[in-house]
């Protein structure tokens, strides 16, 4: 009897061990900020150390561009909260793009990609800058060919996705890396989630109340833990838009001039502002909203003149600065 139990246990152990071998991912933990939910992740791209490492290397590698001069990091600088400090980004051969580079922090939570929401997920997103003539001006097939000439990329792709570098492994790896980018440890978070009442100054608290209250009404579009609801809104910057925004995708006239509401986390470090970087400072932005914006027919009805006092404007800007990640 003892022998039978022994053999049976050994048998179970073998099965269990085999099962572990078949698991494509180890228990990789995403460092999600306090108070944030888990982002949704496709089943075929669960994170592990190898996938994140492959994605990280690709993210910083200009091999993705035709003349090997531009990488993802060229427009998403780590020291500028993954933006580039320019009104419009610059691609290969100094070609100027059409829109402002958005931050990639918390991108895992975005339901659509780009200012106009043209792409539905992170996995497909990288195709666009790679193909764009004023960004990387290349194509994913040639990128994959280059990677297959690299022993280290071949090894890493085999470890991460059990295949040589391919369109699948490249797009998935970069998405995997991007799902490790979070921002949720600002003074505001310390105040709210850690209940540290000393985290914000009186001015910042006043600004917070304006932001979340009737004085500013900012929270309607810039609310939630992400400081955006990811909806498409026209905020009355122009009477006529050169860039039709969401309408570029949907072709609905009612979508002209609507752009995805950006997150305000780290906004103090991601100037200039708006889809075309046409606002240089936070003071300019507050002044714009205080005015109620220009009378474009698609302008959101949520925009109205605010009649803020000089001090209230200062407090509001101070609160926005308190959304900067301390990390």
């Amino acid at each position: 009897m003892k022998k039978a139990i022994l053999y049976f246990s050994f048998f179970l152990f073998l099965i269990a061990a085999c099962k572990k071998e078949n698991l494509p991912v180890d228990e990789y933990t995403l460092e999600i900020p306090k108070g944030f939910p888990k982002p949704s992740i496709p089943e075929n791209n669960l994170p592990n150390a190898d996938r994140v490492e492959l994605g990280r290397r690709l993210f910083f590698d200009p091999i993705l561009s035709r003349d090997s001069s531009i990488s993802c990091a060229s427009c998403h600088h780590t020291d500028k909260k993954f933006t580039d400090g320019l009104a419009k980004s610059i691609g290969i051969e100094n070609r100027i793009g059409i829109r402002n580079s958005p931050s990639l922090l918390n991108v895992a939570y975005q339901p659509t990609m780009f200012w106009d929401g043209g792409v539905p997920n992170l996995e497909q997103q990288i195709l666009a800058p790679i193909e764009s003539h004023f960004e990387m001006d290349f194509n994913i097939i040639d990128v994959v060919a280059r990677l297959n000439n690299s022993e280290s990329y071949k090894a890493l792709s085999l470890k991460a996705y059990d295949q040589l570098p391919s369109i699948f492994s490249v797009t998935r790896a970069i998405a995997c890396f991007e799902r490790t980018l979070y921002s949720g440890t600002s003074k505001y978070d310390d105040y709210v989630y850690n209940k540290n009442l000393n985290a914000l100054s009186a001015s910042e608290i006043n600004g917070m109340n304006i932001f979340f209250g009737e004085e500013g009404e900012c929270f309607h579009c810039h609310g939630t833990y992400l400081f955006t609801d990811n909806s498409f809104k026209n905020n009355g910057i122009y009477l006529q838009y050169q860039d039709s925004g969401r309408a570029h995708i949907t072709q609905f006239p009612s979508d002209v001039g609507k752009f995805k509401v950006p997150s305000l986390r780290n906004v103090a470090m991601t100037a200039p502002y708006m889809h075309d970087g046409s606002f240089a400072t936070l003071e300019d932005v507050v002044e714009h909203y205080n005015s109620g914006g220009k009378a474009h027919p698609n302008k959101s009805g949520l925009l109205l003149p605010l009649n803020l006092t000089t001090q209230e404007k200062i407090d509001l800007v101070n609160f926005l600065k308190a959304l900067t990640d301390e990390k």
Partner: protein
Amino acid sequence: MKNLKSISILFFAIVLIATSCKKENLNTHQILDFHWHSMIGANEAAYATTYTSNGVNFNLSGWRYYVSNFTLIKEDGSEIKIADKVFLIDIANDDYSLDSVPVGNYKGFKFIVGLDSVTNHKDPTLYPTGNPLAIQDPGIHWSWNSGYIFMMVEGKYDSISPNNTTPNKEFFFHVGTDEFSRTIDFSNKSFSVISGEDKTIAIEMDLLKVISNVDLKTENATHSFGALKPLALKIATNWQSAFTVE
């Protein structure tokens, strides 16, 4: 004696089975192929050749288009929808296969130029290399809006004229977005699929008919969006009449 009888019966049975297996009138399906010609007027389309449309010389550097959602209409009017068959028609290749279809008499068939709105927005990175919906080189997919270009025509036209000068300026017709898929109707082009024989239908598309009312000198660019949409509509409207089934 008993053994000889058994062996004879067995031998006879084997012969009977073998010969009856050879009979072909039990096939319920046969392959339906298309011989799909890309034409410019009376000629098979080729790159680096100069053609003329409405008095303007032009040459071609690219012409590809998607067809999908084939429907076969049986004699009794019922329809067989062929799921998941997409062709990316390329002038370099004339042979496309619908694989197995039921044997029988058909009144005709239909298909669409382009893709249905579900397929049009699928993730192209999930198709294996070689699949017509995988990322192509040159590309025929708009990564920025996650949709395919249904028909892509590119080349050069002669902007100077009179019409004996070399094509010098580029033109491009990228027709796509859900609303520009078009059903091509050959529901009265009858054919039969006979047991024991694969079937080939010969079909051709004439580019000159696609641009029959287009003036290349003034209408030479569309990507289907915004101000360039009307030209895409003009082109898509010509598709039905550009096809001929032999």
